[in-house]
């Protein structure tokens, strides 16, 4: 295995992330948590857009639904965070499922427009259903507590986000390398051929939408806890462009690419924070440059030039074979 393989590089980064709370300051802790949240968003969106090829624009809305559900359940019903947070993820998953219904009939531009309209409708609800959502001003969420664990809130949230980002990234990698990931790609590359092989379009489109809803919902719950505040503008079109830019810059149809894209865009986001208004322009331009000049995203450069960055749509063979053998003594000639 090459020294700079994906596995080694990511393990080093993970080790760095594990000691960061003792090295950095509150700001780096905040940015770290933000990065893990965006990793979740980018990985989930890439499953839907990059793998399953569904040009959907509802990710920021599902992110918002996760945040609002988690926040409102704490504020309105006084549920503890650790009860409200899973509910947020479940609601976002269900919303993802509902959006997938028109997706079976629509494709390309029509799907893009429909999901965009859904995102705008969600904004409208956040803004105008004031009795529930507190309207344009948003609302503060309670400071979450990790008691009885002996950690302060920011550190606890950092590790919770890290844990979820790592677990759900591994989950996505495994799914991508399974018959489910291949069904997604088959639908992306040719719906008619996919169906002719018995792949049920409705089922797998619904699954892709639900998965991206789940990842966005988890991210939303963490985000509400990170900011202690939920407001409509956190989940607007800019947020959508940000998610899209992450997967395009990192690489469509690559979980690794999602990680790269999230890292680069969170870095830029923070670097440009002082210059309000430049972020939109910078991300729009970045998106355009990659769409035009580097379709495969940064990960395609890595895959071409470095060993150990491949992402086959199946499990690594040698290990899989070894596992299949023991016990199955009936293999002839062995």
């Amino acid at each position, binding site marked *: 295995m090459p020294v700079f393989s994906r596995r080694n590089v990511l393990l080093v980064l993970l080790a760095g992330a594990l000691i960061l709370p003792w090295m950095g300051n509150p700001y780096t802790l905040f940015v770290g948590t933000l990065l893990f949240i965006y990793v979740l968003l980018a990985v989930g969106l890439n499953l839907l857009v990059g793998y399953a090829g569904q040009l959907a624009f509802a990710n920021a809305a599902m992110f918002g639904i996760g945040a609002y559900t988690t926040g409102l359940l704490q504020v309105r019903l006084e549920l503890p965070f650790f009860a409200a947070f899973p509910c947020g993820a479940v609601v976002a998953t269900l919303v993802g499922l509902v959006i997938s219904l028109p997706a079976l009939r629509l494709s390309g531009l029509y799907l893009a427009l429909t999901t965009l309209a859904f995102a705008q409708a969600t904004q409208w609800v956040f803004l105008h259903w004031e009795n529930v959502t507190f309207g344009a001003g948003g609302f503060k969420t309670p400071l979450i507590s990790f008691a009885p664990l002996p950690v302060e809130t920011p550190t606890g949230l950092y590790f919770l986000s890290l844990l979820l980002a790592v677990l759900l990234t591994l*989950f*996505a990698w*495994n*799914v991508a390398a*399974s*018959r*489910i*990931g*291949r*069904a997604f*790609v*088959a639908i*992306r*590359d*040719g719906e*008619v*051929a*996919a*169906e*002719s*092989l*018995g*792949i*049920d*379009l409705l089922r797998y489109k619904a*699954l892709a939408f639900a998965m991206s809803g789940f990842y966005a919902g988890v991210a939303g719950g963490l985000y509400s806890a990170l900011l202690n505040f939920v407001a409509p503008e956190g989940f607007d079109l800019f947020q959508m462009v940000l998610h899209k830019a992450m997967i395009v810059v990192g690489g469509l*149809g690559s979980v690794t690419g999602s990680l790269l894209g999230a890292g680069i865009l969170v870095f830029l986001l923070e670097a440009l924070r002082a210059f309000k208004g430049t972020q939109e322009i910078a991300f729009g331009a970045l998106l355009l440059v990659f769409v035009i000049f580097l379709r495969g995203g940064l990960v395609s450069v890595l895959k071409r030039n470095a060993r150990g960055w491949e992402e*086959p*749509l*199946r*499990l690594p*063979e040698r*290990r*899989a*074979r070894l*596992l*299949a053998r023991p016990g199955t003594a009936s293999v002839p000639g062995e």
Partner: protein
Amino acid sequence: MSLLVVDNVTLRFGGVAALDGVATEIGRGEIRGIIGPNGSGKTTLLNAICGIHRPDAGEIRLDGEKLTGLKPSEIARRGLGRTFQTSQLFRGMTVLENMICGLHRRTTTGLLAAGLRLRSARAEEAETVERARAALDFVGMGAFADRPASALSFGQQRVVEIARTLIGEPKIVLLDEPAVGLSLNRVAEFDALLRRIRDEKGVTLVLVEHVIRLVMEISDRITVLNSGRKIAEGKPVEVRNNPEVIEAYLGKELRARRAAS
């Protein structure tokens, strides 16, 4: 009992009947050729059988079970395979990954088992990969397993597409102009491959083909379509000497020549 029954199928696009009361029965283990001039409804017939288009009238049955009204994926799962007039390999996958997709309906790993890489998922995956390699070897494409599908030549893509359909062990496979674009000696190879598929796998084949020589050589029976209607059916020799068939082909050619001059 016939394996596939096409029972008076009519299918209209707008006002035009692309299929007009087409009826035929295809027996188990048969190789059936379907020929006819351009636009005569050959592809439409295959699309009606595999569920892409829904007939306006008539019914299609596979092994006695009604297919009409089912989704293409449901029909596929009942044992009907299909290849297309233009290559439909998944371009973002390797040849081997394409092949494994052909086993989709034969595998059961669910989301959690896949995402958690449970032992059952790994075992099923290993088995599918082995079967896919064997199936590639069967069509002589084993050496290409790890190439991107988009790197194959046109003829190779056709062969892999057929292998990908076969690996799911369908009862019947519909092939839409599989030999188009192949050089003549490749056609001969192809002829041998189709026979092996029928003889060794016991698969019934329905073959839409413009390379008349191939169809005549390989088919047990041939169905001739013209303007959406079946105008003849029978053994290759019978069809070849049928005056209506000659007229359908030659008439069209003559008209085309006249229009060109």
